[in-house]
């Protein structure tokens, strides 16, 4: 223990032994409630859900272990395959779209332009909105009767049709459109901060060497931003796997179950079908997927920080 702490203990000792004991442990005492909450509500609850996923629980939880029954049922459920396939389609396009738009906008905004603050504010405001608000807006814009379809028809293209929202095969792409609109500004902000941290000398040196601006970006600057790239990728993947609100507001998972994602599947099993075991198994699959992405990332981050 440091001298200061011992001095403090000695000073406190005058006020009584028990008080000194408490005083010396105040840091532990104030952290204790949060730690207890975390142990119960995070670790305990995860353990409970994992446990339930190995039982025969239906409407009510049952506590006799039945092995991998629920996982076998889960992977026998066509609707789960729809959700998984949608996650790949949505996740892939959502991440790629946000990355592409975000990086391009960040580079363009990095050219020392006027009104940068205003433009940045405009690009990022969707992040402040609830996905339910966004979904409601896009549902109206994309609706087949009066939305974009009517707008383009009004411009003279009378044969134009745009009914993705009610088309089984295309509905998932409307979720992609709204998702990219909402989150691409965030990638822009991450990369812009990254670009600003790159030493200006690099630009100067490369320009003297006669390298063009596009070459400087593609061969020097972007490779230097690999950590930003990785962060953005992890956040977007995380967002994609947890996506729930946007689908509910935009398509309600429909038409039918055509736009189900793992998160909406889990919710339906838990609160509409009363299939506790199945819901738990699907939640555990989501958790495992997220950990598979997050843990290597955190590991590399922490190792990088220690170096």
């Amino acid at each position, binding site marked *: 223990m440091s001298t200061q702490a011992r001095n403090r203990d000695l000073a406190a000792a005058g006020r009584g032994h028990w008080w000194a004991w408490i005083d010396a442990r105040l840091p532990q005492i104030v952290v204790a409630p949060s730690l207890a909450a975390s142990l119960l509500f995070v670790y305990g609850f995860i353990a409970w859900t994992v446990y339930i996923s190995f039982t025969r629980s239906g409407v009510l939880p049952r506590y006799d272990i039945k092995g991998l029954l629920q996982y076998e049922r889960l992977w026998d459920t066509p609707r789960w395959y729809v959700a998984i396939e949608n996650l790949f389609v949505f996740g892939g396009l959502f991440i790629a779209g946000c990355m592409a738009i975000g990086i391009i906008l960040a580079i363009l905004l990095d050219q020392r332009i006027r009104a940068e603050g205003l433009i940045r504010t405009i690009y990022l405001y969707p992040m402040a909105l609830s996905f339910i608000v966004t979904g*409601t807006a896009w549902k109206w814009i994309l609706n087949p009767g009066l939305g974009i379809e009517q707008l383009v028809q009004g411009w003279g293209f009378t044969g134009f049709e745009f009914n993705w929202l009610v088309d089984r095969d295309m509905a998932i792409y409307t979720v992609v459109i709204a998702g990219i609109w909402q989150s691409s500004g965030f990638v822009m902000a991450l990369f812009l901060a990254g670009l600003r941290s790159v030493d200006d000398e690099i630009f100067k040196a490369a320009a003297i060497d006669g390298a063009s601006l596009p070459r400087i970006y593609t061969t020097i600057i972007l490779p230097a931003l690999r950590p930003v790239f990785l962060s953005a990728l992890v956040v977007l993947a995380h967002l994609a796997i947890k996506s729930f*609100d946007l689908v509910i507001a935009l398509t309600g998972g429909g038409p039918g179950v055509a736009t189900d994602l793992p998160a909406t599947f889990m919710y339906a099993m838990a609160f509409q079908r009363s299939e506790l075991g199945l819901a738990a198994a699907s939640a555990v699959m989501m958790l495992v997927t997220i950990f598979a992405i997050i843990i290597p990332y955190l590991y590399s981050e922490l190792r990088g920080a220690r170096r």
Partner: protein
Amino acid sequence: MIAGQAHGIVRQRSLFTAFLRAGLFLVLGLFALYYLLPLFVMLATSFKSLEEIRSGSLIALPRAITFAPWVSAWKSACVGVQCEGLRPYMLNSVAMVAPAVAISTMLGAINGFALTKFRFPGSNAIFALLLLGCFIPFQVVLLPMARMLGLMGLAGSIPGLVLVHVVYGIAFTTLFFRNFLVGISDSIVHAARIDGAGFFGIFLRIIVPMSLPAFVVTVIWQFTQIWNDFLFGVAFTTSVSSPVTVALNNLVASSTGVKEYNVDMAAAIIAGLPTLLVYVLAGKYFIRGLSAGAVKG
């Protein structure tokens, strides 16, 4: 400035560069339109009559402005079977957000303080343990939480929802304060300890005033997250205690008969207005929270 010169070297062909700059602004402007379009469509639609919506174009300005959709969205539109508009649910959201933000922020501040300035054996391990709460998909805690709220007699209530948001907000708030306080020199705390100041004395008189930026970032982050939450709201509330996001979704989904798009849009703007206002007024802090919080979770 240095880069200005660096770019200046490239800028020698000035006509070409001027052309490029114009193109740059054009592209940036088009993207600005892309991001603003949905907001514009929402606003325009919310001031139109249903008749004008049917006959007019999606992006046309309203010809005859009507406030009726706003009045209806606020106090008479049907959410499920109840036809009182969004007003009661806005109040629910306020009653949920205010205590949840205040409690989770205070806990985060004191945790961050204890974990950085009064390190004890195991404090790093505790921080790592808490941090995991940032990453879990909340689906994995929905079922046990629903049962726990039932056991505690808080099922379907706003205090229950406050508890949920506090419990799952601590990880983020602790992270924010820890990262902020790690950057502040320990010497001030040491000096205060030698002068005989205790744990809470140092916290209240030194750390809290110094951490004002961290408080602003954390409050804004928590406010936005909790106001915008849908998953916990829809899973843990009944129709009376729903937050506004759940009510908005029900309002849009439940309209029977004629679809009142203008009311839907007015309702969506009302539900989004608080977070949008915070963003416009304190965007700088919002972005800071976004890059600190979202990178980690």
